[in-house]
């Protein structure tokens, strides 16, 4: 795509954190951006997730992308307001057994290869860092520059940047179809040089063929217990849970909020769009949490909710041009990393549109990889 003149139009479908990030990046490049959301900003997955900015090493591509995006978050931080609740609390990846303990050094080296600071700490240091954890844990990898944010707040901050750059946000705009260089909203067809499908778990409805399915999760939040949890804490088995496309799984992941509340996750299941509470799975998730962090047993749970992650079969997001439709770019399929990856996603797309060389290789995330492979079976 050629560099375009200032004042040209871009439409972003979806005002979640990914859409807002794309809109912000494009507006910074001089595009006149309109963001369309069928409900309101952050109404979808953005409002129900964990808000972590976390570097993940489940694949070299994911490591590069999350590390890049986490850096972009740190660079954006001065422009965020209080409502984003950006807190650089760091992440602790905890080792429960000898095998996991042995893997920590390799993980540290992997992070180091991506210029991400990480440090292996022993069981005593872990007990000092997080006294609420089970005291027989063997150690952890501390990634001090990871952070947590409040996604709806950050989304609004990003959309403010869009508006400052002359862009607009329309709530209640239900995009019915994406066409060549345009979208259909109600009876209107809006034309644009660039259209970004950032419609989250609903993206395939607008771009058939995108292999994104909803992967449901549960979360719980406690009352305020100042200082009970100082870091984001994740069990090493989290990556196994995130990867396995089995029917149900839980993996321990907690996060502090500045009020002292603790956000507890996580669970995964494939049940279509059924948002109802799965009490049995919730119980499993909370049991795992109490097992690894006994201090949580006596905490008061004040809210529980569910949400849908947009999941792809190869665990990598879809970021790039979708050549089946003129002017269409896809920014989706982030599974549980939408918050982390929103900024890098936006930058990769903006760079490619502008003809700039992206900081990292975007080809592993190209949506076109989908069309070059054997069709993936539909998930139940």
């Amino acid at each position, binding site marked *: 795509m050629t560099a375009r003149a200032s004042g040209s139009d871009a439409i972003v479908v979806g005002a979640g954190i990914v859409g807002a990030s794309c809109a912000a990046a494009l507006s910074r490049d001089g595009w006149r951006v309109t963001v369309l959301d069928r409900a309101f900003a952050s109404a979808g997955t953005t409002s129900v997730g964990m808000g972590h900015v976390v570097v993940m090493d489940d694949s070299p591509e994911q490591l590069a992308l999350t590390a890049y995006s986490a850096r972009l978050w740190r660079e954006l931080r001065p422009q965020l307001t209080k409502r984003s609740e950006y807190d650089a609390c760091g992440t602790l990846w905890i080792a429960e057994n000898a095998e996991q303990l042995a893997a920590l050094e390799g993980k540290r080296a992997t992070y180091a290869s991506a210029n991400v600071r990480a440090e292996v700490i022993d069981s005593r240091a872990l007990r000092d860092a997080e006294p609420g954890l089970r005291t027989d844990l063997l150690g952890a990898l501390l990634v001090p520059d990871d952070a947590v944010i409040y996604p709806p707040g950050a989304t609004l901050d990003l959309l403010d940047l869009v508006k400052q750059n002359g862009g607009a946000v329309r709530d209640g705009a239900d995009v019915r179809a994406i066409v060549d260089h345009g979208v259909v909203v109600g009876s209107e067809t809006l034309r644009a040089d660039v259209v970004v499908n950032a419609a989250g778990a609903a993206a395939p409805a607008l771009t058939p063929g995108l292999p994104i399915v909803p992967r449901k999760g549960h979360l719980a939040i406690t009352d305020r217990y100042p200082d009970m949890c100082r870091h984001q804490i994740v069990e090493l088995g989290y990556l196994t849970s995130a990867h396995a496309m089995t029917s149900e799984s839980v993996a321990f992941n907690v996060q502090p909020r500045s*009020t002292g509340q603790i956000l507890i996750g996580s669970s995964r299941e494939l049940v279509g769009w059924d948002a109802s509470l799965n009490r049995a799975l919730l119980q499993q998730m909370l049991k795992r949490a109490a097992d690894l962090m006994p201090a949580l047993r006596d905490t008061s749970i004040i809210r529980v909710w569910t949400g849908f992650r947009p999941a792809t079969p190869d665990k990598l997001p879809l970021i790039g041009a979708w050549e089946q439709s003129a002017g269409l770019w896809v920014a989706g399929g982030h599974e549980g990393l939408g918050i982390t990856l929103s900024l890098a996603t936006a930058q990769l797309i903006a760079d490619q549109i502008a003809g700039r060389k992206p900081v990292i290789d975007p080809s592993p995330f190209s949506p076109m990889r989908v069309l070059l492979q054997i069709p993936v079976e539909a998930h139940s």
Partner: protein
Amino acid sequence: MTLRRFDIMVNGKPVSVRSGSTVAAALLSADQSTFRQSVAGELRGPVCGMGICYECRVTINDVAQQRACLRVVESGMRVETGAAGA
């Protein structure tokens, strides 16, 4: 009818309470009007008296976030109020 009085510990100091009182009523009677601090650090005390508003939360015998209006005072009870952030 005279009710038995005994002491409970409030923030490390003994406070005389009437048997059968709730912790909330006992603290208010002892001129302890601050029970906790809000998210932004404002002083707060009981409002609804019936377990709805959660403004009377205190720590009782080391267990935090308990509604004082729903707990009856007991001999040996230790109450902590107003911890910053809670």
